[in-house]
């Protein structure tokens, strides 16, 4: 806000007079300058919304609402909707509400959701504070490592935990040698909650660190001037000011707790701990023939919880923005000196990294290179590359790998294009269409990936002209794009916000139509943002696993869904090798992202 040197501000001149005379109001220049900002009266009446926007929103509504309505419809039938003799009834709900397993699963879901929030919030906030606000050593290389769990498939992580910390995992074996017994049970509900909490710390970290970064340093400096030492500053000023962001993250964690599938699938199976998503998955075989109507009923119950949470999140976000620090001068943020606490801080971070990243990934890597493992097995004797050979000799696996790469790169790019189209609908506007878009984008968030994939499968099966595409990657791509709509939108929107409105207004004044402004000014300016979004979407698509499960068919295999299927079949060597390949793919994406300085946080 520093004013230019020597600007003459004391004499109140108005606009430059043209002919040495004081000007009157409303000359041509004045009205032209005024036009972009306010809607002038007396314009030719026409459609309230531009046609392209309407088309995009229409398509969006179709793509989002069809699967949702299909699920709802299916939940009120007595059998699969495509079988003759399915009648309308609330029998599915009656069944699940009479099933004690449903209540157990619901209770477990809540327990895990609460546990997740309780663990990830304090840790995520503490990590964010350490990374953003202090002079803890190693911060630069630590940041990408911190975000690794976000991009690793939960199925892979869970599998890693079994190999590493299961009853005969290598960490457990060491523990038994050291302590005489294994003091933990990786298959207990508590363990699942803990693992879930710890692996979601990066999500909280992203929000907390972003909020801390946006904190104007002057409010903290003001506290220091008033007499507060650095710790009091953190306690009395920094933390309360990021409280809205933390609350938002907390609700998000709770909500994700209802959606997690991979972790409870792998870790909950042995002792039979069900959560709502795995209960749903189990319904596929409990009655001997798949019970779509029951599965849909469970899905409706899950959505009934998650949808309000999504709405709550939206409200919180708005509130948080209002609460943001009043414009602070962007002076350098001075980090807090940790002094003797440096070692403790590094230890905490390293401990989290060890448990959440190194141990499970180590487990996966180990298992991928051995033929067998466990008690009494000498690791050195069983090293092999055989598992990988099996993977590359198997047509399905190879196809899965190629498809994954394809859907990540090409599919990711196409998805970003779609997200951009939707993002542009809401760009610089604030009308009813924007609100509708907002809500439409939010809705898929509330549906677990598993069900979304199934619904897309049904749509592709029963809509005649879509049928041929069913067993191609297109169906998987559609499912992925819809499921990650909210995430992608957020990426695009933050890129669009970087463009100063004046740049677009200047183009309008020069004579460019709104469409040309977008193609000639807006899009080129956010090119880097688009590339960054593409990379992030690539990683997210690589990590995806649940959405493709019900779409899995020869031709639509991707690594994630193949992993789930292999897990169910117990082909563990293949799971390990394929998981490692998945990790490598994601790692490549991450490396490229970092190389090009893509900001992994909002």
């Amino acid at each position, binding site marked *: 806000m*520093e004013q230019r040197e020597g600007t003459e501000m004391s004499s109140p001149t108005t606009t430059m007079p043209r002919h*040495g005379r004081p000007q009157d109001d409303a000359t041509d220049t004045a009205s032209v300058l005024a036009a972009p900002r306010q809607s002038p009266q007396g314009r030719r009446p026409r459609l309230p919304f531009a046609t392209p926007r309407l088309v995009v929103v229409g398509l969006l509504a179709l793509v989002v609402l069809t699967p949702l309505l299909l699920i709802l419809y299916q939940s009120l039938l007595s059998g699969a909707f495509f079988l003759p003799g399915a009648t309308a009834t609330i029998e599915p709900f009656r069944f699940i509400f009479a099933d004690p397993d449903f209540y157990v699963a619901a209770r477990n879901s809540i327990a895990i959701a609460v546990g997740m929030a309780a663990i990830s919030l304090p840790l995520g906030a503490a990590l964010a504070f350490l990374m953003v606000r202090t002079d803890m050593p190693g911060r630069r290389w630590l940041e990408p490592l911190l975000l690794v769990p976000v991009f690793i498939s939960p199925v892979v992580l869970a599998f890693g935990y079994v190999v590493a910390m299961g009853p005969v995992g290598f960490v457990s074996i060491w523990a038994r040698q050291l302590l005489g017994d294994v003091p933990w049970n990786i298959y207990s509900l508590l363990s699942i909650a803990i693992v879930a909490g710890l692996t979601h710390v990066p999500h909280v970290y992203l929000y907390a660190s972003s909020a801390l970064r946006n904190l104007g340093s002057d*409010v903290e*400096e003001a506290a220091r001037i008033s*007499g507060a030492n650095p710790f009091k500053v953190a306690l009395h000023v920094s933390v309360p000011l990021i409280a809205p962001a933390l609350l938002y993250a907390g609700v998000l964690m709770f909500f994700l707790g209802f959606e997690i599938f991979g972790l409870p699938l792998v870790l909950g199976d042995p002792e039979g701990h069900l959560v709502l998503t795995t209960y749903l998955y189990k319904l596929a075989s409990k009655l001997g023939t798949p019970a779509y109507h029951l599965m849909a009923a469970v899905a409706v119950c899950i959505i009934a919880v998650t949808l309000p949470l999504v709405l709550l999140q939206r409200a919180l976000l708005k509130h948080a923005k209002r609460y943001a*620090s009043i414009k*602070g001068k962007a002076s350098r943020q*001075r980090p807090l000196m940790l002094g003797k606490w440096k070692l403790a801080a590094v230890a905490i971070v390293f401990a989290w990294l060890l448990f959440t990243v190194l141990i499970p990934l180590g487990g996966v890597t180990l298992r991928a290179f051995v033929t067998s493992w466990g008690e009494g097995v000498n690791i050195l004797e069983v090293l092999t590359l055989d598992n990988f050979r099996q993977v590359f000799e198997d047509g399905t696996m190879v196809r899965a790998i190629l498809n994954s790469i394809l859907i990540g790169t090409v599919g990711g790019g196409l998805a970003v294009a779609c997200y951009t189209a939707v993002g542009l609908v809401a760009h610089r506007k604030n009308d009813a269409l924007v609100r509708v878009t907002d809500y439409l984008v939010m809705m898929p968030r509330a549906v677990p990936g598993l069900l979304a994939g199934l619904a897309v499968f049904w749509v592709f099966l029963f809509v005649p002209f879509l049928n041929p595409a069913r067993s191609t990657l297109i169906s998987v791509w559609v499912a992925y794009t819809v499921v990650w709509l909210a995430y992608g939108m957020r990426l695009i929107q933050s890129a669009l916000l970087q463009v100063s409105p004046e740049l677009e207004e200047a183009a309008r004044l020069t004579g460019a139509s709104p469409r040309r402004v977008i193609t000639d000014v807006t899009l080129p300016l956010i090119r880097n943002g688009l590339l960054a979004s593409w990379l992030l979407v690539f990683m997210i698509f690589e990590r995806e696993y649940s959405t493709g499960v019900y779409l899995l068919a020869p031709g639509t295999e991707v690594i994630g869904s193949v992993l789930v299927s292999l897990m169910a079949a117990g082909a563990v060597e293949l799971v390990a090798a394929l998981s490692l390949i998945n990790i490598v793919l994601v790692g490549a994406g991450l490396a490229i992202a970092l190389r090009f300085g893509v900001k992994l946080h909002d």
Partner: protein
Amino acid sequence: MSHTPISNAADAAPTVLSVQGLQLAYGDNPILQGVSMNLRRGEVISLLGPSGSGKTTLLRAVAGLEQPHTGQIIIAGKPVFDSAAGLEVPAEQRNLGLVFQSYALWPHKTVFDNVAYGLKLRKVSAAETKDRVSDALRNLGLGHLADRHPHQLSGGQQQRVAIARALVYNPPVILLDEPLSNLDAKLREEARAWLRELIVRLQLSALVVTHDQGEAMAMSDRILLLNGGKIEQQGTPTEMYADPSSLFVAGFMGTNNTLKGRVEAFDDQRVGLRFGEHMLWGQARGAARATAGAEATGVVRVEHIDLADGPGPNRIPMELVTSMYLGDRWEYVLDNGHTMVRAHGRQALPAGPRWVEVPSDALWVFA
């Protein structure tokens, strides 16, 4: 170059802030290159200068928010920074008040809590806190706003809260960072009067950063003009305005006409400046005193130029291009082909050839 200040009552007052030989650099980039100043009790000093001059850095260094590497800072007799002794007292222990340019009010606290925070940290009892905060708020006309939150206040109200917060624990010195730059032009003039009145009434000692010379002159007892991390000149406002020691000071402190030429002749006190075909006599400054034939710049305030009817000593012919109406006066734009000059007057004048008189006691020649 510092001038000895004219004696006044402040002379006898004790020094509340003393800065000696302060040097500060960001990496290889020197920001402050040896700054020294003293602030007496009841005095208002403005740190003036263009962006990048180091004035804000100096203020923040005094506050403890920037780390100089050489020098000394003493507040109310207590050293808070001494590079030789390796002493650096952290900001929270310096007991200063700082009003930020952005006000930096804590949005999650009420007005009352914002102001009370400093007392809370000093472990003042609740009852006493309530009294002192209410006093401070009343002093600044904010009594009825104690329970509001910052986002519910206007800009001006926020500023007053920031001031109250800085004053409530009676610091020996209050620092203000660009206090008027957030305000509209009209409000600015009112605010600077109000601020000056407040400081005088409360008998505060204040260090103010500003980039506006008009503001600095209106509000302060003394001005320190910084340029590139050094004090170019310090003195009272009248000294700074009427007696600039260098071209930079002359240029910064007022609105000027600049006439470039050569030193040609000398006379007693004055020096002759060859300006095109004419010679103008003016006051010699700096090297202009000595060197004949040197390139020199003549500076004369816009308000000191007159329009004359015909030729004469210290007059040059110019073409009046246009007259601009400023409300309280007319400004004339004159041009002779290679130099543009502005003058003030009371009525509109038609374009055409004119004679411009440059009074020799108003022309400063710098070389």
